[in-house]
């Protein structure tokens, strides 16, 4: 039971489940708190993990994940590597709109150790949107939380007429034309 699957459990009524995967636990926690602070009309539960796979013991208690957010710190190569290895434990059907890469650290351009192009490429490879932000700034953190809540609402199927797959196709850069 190593691979994370999007549709192997039943959804809960009027709720969305978010999984944050990232190596910086403090930042992760701050973001989670910011998300819970956002005004919303559905229940959000957030699960934090430093890497995948998730431990299999308590798997039957875990709800179905609606959106997986991989956090990458642009200042640490390790965070990218960590995400790359974790991606192997995500079922392919997750990439039909239920994965998002969140790149933080754009506020310290001089300390960058990852090229933004590398992350963009990762997003393209996995057909998932890449959001850039600076979670150290409180205002940006709140704004990012708001954006994630909007995405989660769609991924949890709470916006009539908009599916996760259709949404992610909007979010992707249309390079092909």
């Amino acid at each position, binding site marked *: 039971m190593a691979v994370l699957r999007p549709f192997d459990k039943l959804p809960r009524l009027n709720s969305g489940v978010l999984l944050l995967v990232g190596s910086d636990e403090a930042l992760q926690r701050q973001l989670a708190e910011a998300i819970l602070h956002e005004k919303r009309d559905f229940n959000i539960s957030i699960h934090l993990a430093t890497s995948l796979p998730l431990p299999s013991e308590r798997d039957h208690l875990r709800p179905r994940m609606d959106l997986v957010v991989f956090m990458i710190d642009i200042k640490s190569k390790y965070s990218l590597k960590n995400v790359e290895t974790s991606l192997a434990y995500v079922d392919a059907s997750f990439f039909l709109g239920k994965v998002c890469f969140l790149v933080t650290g*754009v*506020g*310290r*351009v001089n300390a960058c150790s990852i090229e933004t192009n590398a992350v963009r490429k990762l997003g393209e490879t996995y057909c998932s*949107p890449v*959001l*850039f*932000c*600076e979670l*150290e*700034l409180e*205002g*940006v953190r*709140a*704004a*990012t939380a*708001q*954006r994630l809540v*909007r*995405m989660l609402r*769609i991924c949890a199927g709470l*916006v*009539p*007429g*908009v599916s996760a797959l259709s*949404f992610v196709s*909007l*979010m992707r*850069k*249309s*390079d092909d034309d």
Partner: protein
Amino acid sequence: MQRRKSSKTPKQPLSIPNKSQTDLSAWRKGAKIDSEKSLQNNQSADDQKCESQEGSLEQALSYFQKAQDSVAPKKKSVEQEHLDAVESTALEQGLPPEGFEILLKVVLSGRFADTVNTRLLKSLIPASVIPENSVVTAVSWLCVGKCSGNIQLLFLKWLITMFDFIDHKEQLNALYGFFFSFLQDEKLCPYVCHVLYLLTRKENVRPFRIRILLDLQAKMGMQSHLQALLSLYKLFCPEQVTITLPGKMKTYFKNSEGPWKAAITAVRQRNQGSSPLSQAVFLGTSQPQSRKRKWNAQLVIPASSASTKHLDEDREKSCFYLCSPNESFPVEQLQTFPQLLQNIHCLEFPSQMGSVLTNPLLLHYMNCVKDESIYLRLYYWMGQRLQEECPWCVVDNPYEEEFRSFLETVYKAECFLQEGFSACEEFLYKTLPLWDGVCCRSEVLRLVSWIPLSSFSDIKPYLFDPLAQLFFTSSIYFKCSVLESLKELLQNWLIRSVIQMDLEISSVNTTLSGLVNVVAELVHFVGWISTVAMRLENNSTFLLNFILDFYGTVCDIYLKYNLPLLIMPPAGVFYPALLSMDSVNLNQLCYIMYRYRANLVAAKENELSKKKILQFKFSNQTYQEYNQYIIAMVGCLWTSSAFQKDTHPQGLCMDDKLLSKTAVKEIKSSFNIVYHPAMMGCSIKFLQQICPGDTTLNFKLIKGKKWDWYLEYLYSRGLKGLKAFIESSISRVSQAARSKAGNVDV
């Protein structure tokens, strides 16, 4: 010391409108207090502390002055104390102009240890301006080469950072050759290049210098700093620099503001109190006799002798300050528009280009002087400022308010010039993908509206892709703001295209078809994001209002801007508007459709009469699409036949069986202007007025003559769009039209 200074530069009164006095006489007053004592007394009141600081600073200055004249006393403690005094004053209030000569001399003469020199250099923060003389002296010491390489490097960095604070640059420019010789030093080269970049004027560009630069480039490879200088040379003398250089670079120079940046901002803020940004901007205009710019000889000559006499008479009569033709008019005395007109031949831009932004007269001037170097100066300054102070790209930047007001200033200047700055454009391309959509929202989006007309596919990945991503994930208010600014962008592009066509400038990328394509792409883009947004926001009327506002511009492109382009709104916008619950949006839609009709009829007439040879005509598909929409509209508002007759693939057409399942009686007469959800309120009010006693609300009463009354009633409630639409598109039908433009009509 002050006397000496003032005798040296009698024509440069430092008239900075600044509350904090920087004259040395004021510092003298403070010196009366025993500084040694009060230094230890940390608990003393703030003003007292301030005064004592001034006193200790003066002591420190005189100490350092003596130290360089005679052999430096080797007492470490005394030295340390004075150093502390300079540092603390500098960081708190900045140094007075008089201090710079002394301290720069000390630093560059290499009399003290490098650590002392470094500390001194780092604390050289101006309270107001830096006198040019002090810098000239410093450069001469630099050439003597008594100080170490590190200090030389730090001094150059300091010079670059403080360049805008130097009150004149005339003599400094005379040292151009000296700076140039430092290029040979590999370590200093990047910074020297930067200094030269700031200093270069047309007359400095010489063939031998170009040769040296090219040699250097051959030796060191393509370095961005050398390229920067070469591209500047090329700009001034394109015929002499024949090599091709890469286009716009992201950054030419490394940031060298490091140690001073924060301190300058802090000092400025403390001295100014209010907006520290505006001070930097105003500083430039308050300079008496700014540096002489390279001046087109032709510009000066025509106004010369012929008008001198006239000017002399004028001067006697009025109090206008008019200068002789070879003298420049001090920019800070420019107060009125007539003054601008009378001195336009002898004006010079201030040494700080940024000050132009807040001065409408200088903006006027900038508009009529088409000097490339002006834009280059502004471009460089603005680009750096935007990049380094952008609050969402720089973590350690607490000045969001400041940045906001700066963006506001820039936007206003853009509106004034009716043109975007390229530095802004680049800034947006660079930072929009990193933007959170909240910080300085309205200011940033306003800047978007001034992005110049250019190939859509070029700017799409930098502008429209990130904007779309933000748009889809942000709040409805953000969506509305984006639509608003894209409307402005469209209008600006359209105006620009009109001007371009009028002037008949037709370069490769501004041909008519090119223009039409770019505008069409923008409209399609907005159509796409609008459709999605309507779905995401559950057909919000608020959002719809903004979308229709955008189409209010689109529908009139042909008649208003003379561009052969007509794009109908997508079905995802049209149908929600047609079936919207509020009359304002329906009314707006009616007006838009009426304007579409007017445009299409005009186009058809032009086509038929063949008055002019038409390069373009609207495709039949456009007419067809219009007709489909009109059928749906007339069906919804007039004939109750929308469900049967709508031919649009995404339209309302429904099977009769399906309709009968709705169990609505008399389907064929139950969906028109009386029953439409947006009009229901009006029809109920109308019924109450014509038969006050009746509470059954018999809508069928509204027919025949009462139908006309009902229409009058609607018109009187301000539904002018509806009126225009009905009168243009429907009454003709009912009168069995003998229309000329038959295929436009239903």
